[in-house]
């Protein structure tokens, strides 16, 4: 803390008298050129005296006049701006001499002219004191008080006011006009742009929009009918009732929890070399879903994830599970890892993650230097990191919570034990083999023993003992290795069935050899190990600590500099959580309402929800954002209240079709006026869930250990390497009702993603995803049009409809209602009936055999010790009892032909887009 106070004091030092008025050139230098050099040039040209690019030092006039390797006195010719290379290189006309080198860093024309004009003025270079005086008196822009950078230059630099919007306290703005506040803000902008808003969307589209938005599922035909009737009577009441019904559905948490899991990078495995299963992270997933369903106040949600273990008691299971958040990033520590490096990897990951998730700051930018654009000194980065210096991993035994779903565990365990047993048998047979070879070895050597163990016991000399394994064949080496690795994995995976919390505790950092198993919490957290003392790391290197820092929070955020984080072992994270969850924190509420807004409207108010800094997109409606942020806090940080508020606006109910699209395009080229609602393509999970819902196969059971849906068989059995061996194959759950649950419950393996979901832009689980990409790529067609999964859905869909209705017209109508929430028009009905008839003719000629499923898979591998190939067989026990979804061989040509129609519906644009 002392250092911080010192910094504040220096800012208030009285400055010496000014003296002579500065010249134009001096002012240009002090106000423009010097800060420009500092921002764009000095990193390579002087800051690090060891590494000066092209030997051109730009820290003094004298040094620049000397020039560098490539140009000498042409670099700076005082009085001749147009001829000086210092100016010319910024114009980027000469290949290889564009400066700064990175194109995204290039100078604006105005900035280039500052340099030229300063040189024309004789390139004056006043002393640092005089520069400070000039800046004090004349500088534009705003200074920011922070904990201080590594240089005074950085500490004293100025920012454009508009880049600092997120550091301004949230002040509730006056609502401009009457009516719904959201509309008032949006309409003000529309009026300014002279754009009329689009009319209200049709009610049948509105129920589809709202249902997908809040639940990620399509509305049932009956729900549509009821809603339309209610709308006829009283549309406002109908709408309000609809929103309430959806918000109270347990599926709401599944959909909005999914958004949160995108941001925090949820996965069920560790990634990297071993990609070990994390057998208990699903409890965090369910915690998140519950939190949304219960409308847990967001400030509490923040506190629990950052410091649940501290604010709750150690026996408060939910609190322990919640802090699993801190460990969501990919991480492992193997025998080839250096402990300090992987520890630092976690510290960097958690610091950046807390920054991006809660504060919309990618803090990694300040890991090696003071932030280039934002008022985030590298000191703040490490001060934030120091908060986690006592945070340690542990997987602790707890009780199950009454709300946790334990269904299916026994059966899953039964199959898992079969796998485990088969592997143990394999290892046992190899041990026997090994003993045979040992006996042979001793015999050949004429030694009296039968085994290595026996020889050791008898005190045999090392030269009379076999070194290493005595296997002869590549498959013996290879299988032994597989067996050993799998034994370890399968053993750890038994934790799936145990009430273990994937969590943290506070204490010393213990030495770590490797992490191949559950990490137990030590009896005495302050026993063995090192109490970490955080320091600014030179170049981010854990072996290069420089200035020590104490735990603290971001100093540019109002209140941050004064905020006190204890440096005790316990309580650092509680302090951080309280600071983040403080209504006065200028970032937190804005960050969350911005995310909520984005998922409703398909675009955020501030366009980079993970980056509120200078490089992020500025808010299109800053006052609306602030009003929402303030409202959010006022309504007790209730996320559901925000849904009610936003969804009750006219803007939310607007049509996606604007009557004058050309006018809108011209006056609102960026498309941020909200004159019309944006259509959106369903997310990967929604496509699968909606197909299952429509086909009648969806099992809506909530929570529990991860399910394993059907995956393209080639992908499921795709061999993949983990450290030193193959990963066990992916096998789906044996029964349809276990597999056909919502996608959020599907096992998410970092190194083996479901191609169905991946192709529809499910983000990779390594980086925080602020917004999903929805690009259209051709393989999506192969997946949705050709895959077994799609065929299965279409067939079940057809079978369901034909079970429900007999009449052909009614069947087509029902299919349309299920898929689109509307009946077909005359033309569609005719075309569909006609298609059905044609396809019956096609299908009648086809004969389908029941599909066969592999009960084992043979792997070919190159054995690392011998370089030779060997093969081994992996048993897939689940497939011995596997019950496939409805198969073509089980139905008649009429049903299969109707399934052709259903497949078309599931592939159609009307199905995969929401309006």
């Amino acid at each position, binding site marked *: 803390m002392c250092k911080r106070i010192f910094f504040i004091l220096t800012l208030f030092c009285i400055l010496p008298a000014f003296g002579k008025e500065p010249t134009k050139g001096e002012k240009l230098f002090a106000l423009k050129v010097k800060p420009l050099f500092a921002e764009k040039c000095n990193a390579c040209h002087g800051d690090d005296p060891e590494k000066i690019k092209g030997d051109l030092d730009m820290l003094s006039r004298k040094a620049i006049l000397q020039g560098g390797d490539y140009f000498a006195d042409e670099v700076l010719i005082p009085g001749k701006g147009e001829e000086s290379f210092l100016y010319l290189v910024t114009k980027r006309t000469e290949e290889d001499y*564009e400066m700064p080198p*990175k194109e995204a860093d290039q100078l604006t024309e105005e900035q280039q002219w500052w340099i030229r004009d300063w040189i024309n003025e004789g390139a004056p270079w006043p002393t640092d004191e005089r520069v400070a005086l000039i800046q004090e008196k004349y500088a534009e822009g705003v200074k920011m008080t922070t904990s201080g950078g590594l240089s005074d230059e950085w500490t004293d630099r100025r920012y454009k006011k508009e880049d600092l919007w997120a550091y301004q306290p949230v002040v509730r703005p006056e609502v401009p006009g009457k009516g719904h506040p959201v509309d008032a803000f949006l309409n003000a902008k529309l009026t300014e742009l002279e754009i009329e808003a689009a009319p209200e969307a049709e009610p049948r589209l509105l129920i589809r929009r709202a249902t997908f938005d809040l639940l990620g599922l399509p509305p049932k035909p009956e729900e549509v009918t009821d809603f339309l009737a209610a709308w006829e009577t009283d549309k406002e009441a109908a709408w309000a009732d609809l929103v309430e019904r959806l918000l109270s559905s347990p599926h709401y948490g599944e959909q909005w929890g999914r958004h949160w899991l995108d941001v925090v990078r949820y996965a069920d495995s560790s*990634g*990297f*070399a071993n*990609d070990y299963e994390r057998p208990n992270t699903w409890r965090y997933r369910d915690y998140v879903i519950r939190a949304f369903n219960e409308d847990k106040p967001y400030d509490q949600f923040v506190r629990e994830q950052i410091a649940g273990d501290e604010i709750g008691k150690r026996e408060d299971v939910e609190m322990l599970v919640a802090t699993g958040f801190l460990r969501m990033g990919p991480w492992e520590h193997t025998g*080839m890892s250096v402990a300090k490096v992987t520890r630092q990897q976690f510290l960097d*990951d958690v610091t950046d993650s807390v920054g991006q998730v809660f504060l919309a700051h*990618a803090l990694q*930018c300040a890991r090696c230097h003071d932030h280039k*654009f934002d008022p985030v000194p590298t000191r703040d980065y490490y001060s934030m990191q120091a908060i986690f210096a006592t945070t340690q991993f542990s997987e602790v035994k707890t009780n199950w919570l009454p709300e946790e779903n334990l269904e299916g565990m026994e059966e899953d365990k039964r199959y898992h034990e079969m796998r485990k047993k088969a592997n143990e048998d394999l290892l046992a047979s190899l041990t026997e083999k090994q003993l045979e070879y040992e006996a042979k070895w001793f015999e050949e050597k004429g030694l009296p023993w039968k085994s290595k163990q026996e020889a050791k016991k008898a005190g045999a000399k090392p030269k009379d003992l*076999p*070194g*290493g394994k005595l296997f002869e064949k590549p498959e013996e080496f290879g299988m032994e290795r597989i067996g050993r690795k799998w034994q370890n994995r399968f053993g750890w995976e038994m934790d799936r069935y145990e009430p273990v919390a994937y969590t943290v505790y506070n204490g010393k950092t213990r030495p770590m050899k490797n992490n191949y198993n559950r990490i137990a919490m030590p009896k005495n957290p302050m026993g063995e190990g090192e109490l970490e003392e955080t320091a600014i790391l030179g170049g981010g290197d854990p*072996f290069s600590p420089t200035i020590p820092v104490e735990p603290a929070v971001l100093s540019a955020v109002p209140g941050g500099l004064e905020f006190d984080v204890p440096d005790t072992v316990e309580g650092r994270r509680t302090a951080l959580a309280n600071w983040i969850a403080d209504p006065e924190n200028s970032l937190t509420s804005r960050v969350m309402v911005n995310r909520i807004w984005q998922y409703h409207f398909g675009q955020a108010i501030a366009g980079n929800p*993970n980056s509120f800094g200078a490089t*992020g997109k500025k808010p299109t409606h800053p006052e609306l954002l602030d009003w929402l942020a303030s409202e959010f806090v006022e309504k007790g940080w209730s996320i559901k209240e925000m849904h009610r508020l936003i969804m009750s606006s006219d803007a939310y109910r607007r049509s*996606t*079709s604007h009557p004058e*699209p050309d006018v809108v395009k011209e006056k609102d080229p960026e498309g941020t006026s909200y004159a019309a609602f944006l259509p959106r393509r369903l997310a990967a999970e929604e496509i699968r869930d909606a197909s299952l819902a429509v086909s009648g196969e969806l099992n809506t059971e909530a929570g529990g250990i991860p399910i394993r849906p059907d995956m*393209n068989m*080639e992908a499921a059995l*795709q*061999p*993949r390497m983990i450290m*030193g061996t193959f990963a066990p194959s992916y096998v789906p759950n044996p029964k349809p009702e276990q597999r056909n649950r919502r996608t959020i419950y599907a096992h998410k393996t970092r*190194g083996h993603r479901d191609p169905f979901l991946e192709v529809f*832009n499910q983000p990779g689980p*390594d*980086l925080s995803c602020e917004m999903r990409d*929805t690009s*259209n*790529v*051709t393989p*999506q*067609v192969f997946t949705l*049009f*050709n*895959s*077994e999964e799609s065929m299965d859905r279409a067939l079940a869909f057809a079978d369901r409809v034909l079970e429900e209705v007999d009449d052909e017209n009614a069947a087509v109508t029902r299919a349309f209602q299920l898929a689109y929430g509307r009946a077909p028009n005359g*033309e569609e009905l005719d*075309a569909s009936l006609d*298609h059905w008839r044609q396809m019956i003719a*096609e299908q009648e000629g086809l004969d389908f055999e029941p599909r066969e499923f592999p009960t084992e898979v043979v792997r*070919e591998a*190159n054995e*690392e*010790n011998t*370089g*030779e190939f060997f093969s081994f067989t992996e048993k897939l026990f689940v497939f011995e009892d596997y019950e496939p979804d409805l198969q*073509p061989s089980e139905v008649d040509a009429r049903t299969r032909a109707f399934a*052709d129609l259903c*497949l*078309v*519906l599931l*592939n*159609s*644009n*009307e199905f995969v*887009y929401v309006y």
Partner: protein
Amino acid sequence: MNSRRDFLYGLTSSLGSVAFSSMLSRDLMAHPGPGAQALHFPKTKAKHCIFLYMEGGPSHIDTFDPKPKLTDLHLKEFTREGEKQSAMSSGKRYYVQSPFDFIKAGESGADMCTLWENLKDVADDLCFYRGMQVDSVNHPTANYQANTGNQFGGDPGIGAWVNYGLGTENEDLPGFIVLPELAHPQGGAANWANGYLPTSYQGTPLRPTGSPILDIQPPKGITREHQRKNLDLLAKLNQSHAEEHPYHDDLVARMKNYELAFRMQTQVPNTVNIDAESEKTKEMYGIGSEPTDDVGRRCLLARKLVEKGVRFVQLYVSTWDSHDYIAKAHGSLIPRVDKPIAALIKDLKDRGLLEETLIVWMGEFGRTPDNGVRGGGKAYGRDHNPDAMTVWMAGGGVNAGHTIGATDEIGAKAVDQVHHVRDFHVTLLRLLGLDDNKLTYYHAGRFKQLSQFGGTVIDDLIA
């Protein structure tokens, strides 16, 4: 929203201009991608890259960087400890000499062990580089760094960057194709991911067996005519839907994708079919005989893909991780790749394609001159070494016939022309006409690039 690149594989704008007959023809139009409005270095020769990735970390000491000094030190023991050491690298260790003999190949006198029976014939086409270093001693992190620049994964693969920069020459094939082995490498598909770039830049693995692209064919029994009828109804429904939403461009893009996919179903299998190649060619690549068949097939396929205008082909050959018994392990791996790779270079040369194709051969790191005593035994292998390795390049614009940089006398550490892998990445982009400093993409608060924070071109690798 609809960038030009979306058209390429993502396809959003009109397909009308592309005649059906020219769908698979070469040099349709070599337009740069959105990452490079015009080629950064217009005079560049290389237009394609075949990246031969030797996963596991091949030993420079036993392939291209002989260390006679190790013969003197062979089996000499020492102990290493320290907080910078992993469990693998610490403890009791001993030096290991190379089990292989070396020759000076070609007029350039390139060092090669004698197992390179075929590659030696093209020695003068290769540019060896011995100065490279990486950060990580672990496979997946080192793989990620070699393939994406970021050792922690999540970033775009090199092939994704190259396509983002150069765009495509063939609208009907992905611009970034991966030819993995049967098994995917450690770290999985994240090695060829699009990262934060749009999904259309993702590497598409062509599977060595089964369906080359997942689900490219409909299930058994469904004929093309059958599918056509379904597609016709789909087009009809989509058409009337699109009329209701005339300003929603994605709808049209998605409709066109269905037609393109329908054509690709027949075209891709043709493209990847190597049966039609002459027996002589197949023999040259070692197809049909062991141990070269698998790598031979994929090398030949790589040539075909490059001919079809695919920008970036990455081919994986794994299990170079010879901690134990390197004589046997490397001794069987080198003959797997030697003939096919030499054939690839010769074949490209004969077809006049070597000039415009950059070939890179590298692994994630090199190997140590010493080995750990494990389980009380000595197994004559080598551990991971991030400080020294050998990579080589051939083809478009490389300084062929030279060996650049050097390691110390035991091959423990690069000592001359020492560069981090980021500089190698920058050089690779440069050879393809791209400037790493211009090839950037905004993500998480800053403009990111393959080299992460910028790097320098290794001039001596370029002719």
